C-alpha cells in the first residue's frame, strides 16, 4: 500500500545575506493513514520548514524547493499549480500553529473564521457553515459554543484559541493534520488537554498527524513513529519506542539524556546528579560544511565524520558513522 504522504529527498534553499543556504537537505519520510509521525529537534533544525514545504507555504522568495518530491495520495505537490495546492490546503491537509495568540485574525469572530474554512472547500450555505462551525467548536470541547462563536480571539484564553485552530483545521475532515509545536505556548495543564483532544480526534476521524515538537515527552505521548532532525537533515528515524529506548544517533541520545525528567529516584535523592550535556549549539545554516553537522559537538566524532553520513538501517535508520546497527528490535515492527 502506498503511503498517504511520501516525502523524498526534499531540499529547500533560502537566499539570505550570507548567500544561498540550504535549510532542508535530503529529507525523506512517509506518513500512513491514521498514524502520528513526530518530528523532533532543537530550534533551527528545519522542523517548521518541513511542515511549510508540505503545505506549499514556503515563502518564495526568498525560499524555494530546489529538489525532491512530495507526494500526497500519489499526487506530486512539488511544482503543482498554486490553485491546486490551495484546494488541498485546509481540505485535505490541515495545520495548526505554535502561537494560538497570534494565529487567529484579531478582527474577525472565531465562528466566522471556522465557517470560512468550510465555505472555501464545501458547497454549503452560509447558515449551514455557521451551524457546522458551532458543532465543530463543541467537538473540540469549547463550552457554550454558540455564544463563543460570536467572540473575537482576544476574548478567549490561549487554550480555547488553540481549540478554535484545531476546529478550523479539522473542519473539512482532512487526511493529514500538521501540528507545528501546538502546545509550546500553553501551560502544562492546557497542553495535556490539547494532547488528549488531538488523540481523540485522531481516533474519531482517522486523521494522520505530523507532530512537530522539541519535547521528547510530547513524542512519547503522541507519536507512533519519530523523525529526528538536525541542521536541516534527518539523522534518525524509526518507531517511537525504538528511538526513545535505543536511540542510535549521539544527538538523539543526548537530547533524551539532557531532559530533567520527572523521576521518583531523582526526586528522592538528596542532591540529584548533574544532567547530561550536549556541548555547543546548533551551527548556523550558512556555516554548514560537507561533513556531519553534529561532528563538532560529538564526543564520538572521528576521521570519517568529515563525510556526510547517510540515513540507513531498515526500520530504525540512523545517520551516523559511529553507529553500528545491532540486532534491531523488530519484534513489533510494522
Amino acid at each position, binding site marked *: 500500500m502506498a503511503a498517504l504522504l511520501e516525502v523524498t529527498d526534499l531540499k529547500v534553499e533560502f537566499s*539570505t*545575506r550570507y548567500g544561498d543556504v540550504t535549510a532542508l537537505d535530503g529529507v525523506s519520510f512517509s506518513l500512513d493513514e491514521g498514524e502520528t509521525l513526530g518530528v523532533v529537534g532543537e530550534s533551527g533544525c528545519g522542523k517548521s520548514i518541513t511542515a511549510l514545504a508540505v503545505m506549499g507555504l514556503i515563502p518564495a522568495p*526568498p525560499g524555494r524547493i530546489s529538489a525532491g518530491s512530495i507526494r500526497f495520495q500519489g499526487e506530486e505537490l512539488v511544482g503543482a499549480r498554486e490553485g491546486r495546492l490551495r484546494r488541498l490546503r485546509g481540505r485535505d491537509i490541515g495545520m495548526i500553529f505554535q502561537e494560538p495568540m497570534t494565529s487567529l485574525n484579531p478582527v474577525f469572530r472565531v465562528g466566522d473564521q471556522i465557517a470560512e474554512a468550510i465555505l472555501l472547500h464545501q458547497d454549503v450555505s452560509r447558515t449551514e457553515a455557521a451551524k457546522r462551525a458551532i458543532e465543530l467548536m463543541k467537538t473540540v470541547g469549547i463550552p457554550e459554543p454558540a455564544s463563543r462563536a460570536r467572540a473575537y480571539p482576544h476574548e478567549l484564553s490561549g487554550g480555547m484559541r488553540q481549540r478554535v485552530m484545531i476546529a478550523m483545521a479539522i473542519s473539512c475532515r482532512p487526511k493529514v493534520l500538521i501540528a507545528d509545536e501546538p502546545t509550546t505556548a500553553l501551560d502544562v495543564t492546557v497542553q495535556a488537554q490539547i494532547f488528549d483532544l488531538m488523540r481523540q480526534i485522531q481516533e474519531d476521524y482517522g486523521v494522520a498527524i505530523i507532530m512537530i515538537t522539541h519535547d521528547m515527552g510530547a513524542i512519547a505521548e503522541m507519536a507512533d513513529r519519530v523523525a529526528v532532525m538536525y541542521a536541516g537533515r534527518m539523522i534518525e528515524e524509526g518507531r517511537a519506542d525504538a528511538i526513545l529506548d535505543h536511540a542510535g544517533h549521539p544527538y538523539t541520545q543526548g537530547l533524551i539524556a539532557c531532559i530533567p525528567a520527572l523521576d521518583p529516584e531523582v526526586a528522592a535523592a538528596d542532591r540529584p546528579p548533574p544532567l547530561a550535556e550536549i*556541548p*555547543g*549549539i546548533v551551527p*548556523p545554516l550558512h*556555516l554548514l560544511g560537507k561533513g556531519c553537522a553534529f561532528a563538532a559537538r560529538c564526543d564520538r566524532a572521528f576521521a570519517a565524520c568529515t563525510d556526510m553520513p547517510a540515513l540507513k538501517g531498515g526500520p530504525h535508520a540512523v545517520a551516523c558513522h559511529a553507529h553500528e546497527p545491532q540486532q534491531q528490535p523488530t519484534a513489533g515492527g510494522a
Partner: protein
Amino acid sequence: MSATQHSTPAPDAPVVEAVSPLSEAFRMFRRNRPAMAGTVVFLILLAIVIYGALYGGDPFEIVWAPQTPPGEDGFVFGTDYLGRNLLTGLLTGGAPTMVVGASAAALSIVIGITIGAFAGYFGGWVDTLLMRVTEFFQVLPALLFAMVLVTLFSPSLLTSSFAIGIVMWPQTARLTRAEFLKIRELEYVTAARAIGARDRRIMWRVILPNALPPLIVSATLTVGVAILFEAGLSFLGLGDPNTMSWGMMIGANREYILDAWWPVTFPGIAIFLTVFSVSLIGDGLNDAFNPKMRER
C-alpha cells in the same frame, strides 16, 4: 549571528571582532545607494547655501529688466518681476530656509523627546497630563498657529524658528513615548534597576539610546517638514522681510506666473531638492536601522 559560538571555552577559538549595532547600521547606510545620493546632494546644497550666504551678494538689488527669461543677457536663471537677479536669490535664499529648518527641528525634537520620555517612563498621572498637553497642541492647526505667533511677535528668523518648533513637537513626543513604553517593559530595563541604577540613568542612558533609531529617522523627517514649514511661511509673506528666502521668492512672484514661469519654478525646485535629499537620508537611516524590512 557571528561565527564561533561554543558555550564551553575553547582557547584556540578565533577572537571575534566586536560589531556594535550602530556601526552595523552605518555600514548598511553606506551600501544604500539612494541614501548616499541623498547625502551627496544635501552636502552640495549645503555648500552652495554657505557659499551664497558669504559671497552671494544682495538679492534685493534690482539689476536688469524685469522678467528676463533664463539664459538671456547672461542671467542663468533670469530675473524676477522687479528685475532682481534670480541667481543671487537662489544662492542667498537657502540660508534662512536651512537655518530655520534646522533650529525649528532641533527645538521640536528637544521638546518632543523630553515630554515623550517623561510621559512614557513615569506613566500614570504624569503620562496623562503630558499627553493631554500634546493632544492640545495637535488640535491646533499647526500652520495657522505658527502664522499667528509670527505675526503677533513680528516675523524674523528667531520667531519663525520658535513658532515652527512649537507646533511640530507633538509627533516626536508621541513617538518617544511609544518607544519608551515599549522598551520600559524589556527585561534589561528591569535588570538595570536590579543592579541599582537610578531613574535618571535608566531614562537617558538605558532607554533613550535604544529608542534612538526611530527617533533619528523621525528627526531627519522633522527637518524636512520644518523646511517646508519655513518655505510656507515665507511664501505667505510671514518670513523675515529683510532676508531673501526661497519661499519668499515664490510668494513675491506668484501674481505673475502666467507671464514668467521661472521666478517661481527655480526656488521651488531648490526647496524640493533640499527636502528630497533629506528624506532620502531619512529613508536610508530607516533601512539601516531595520534590516529586517529589507530581508523580507
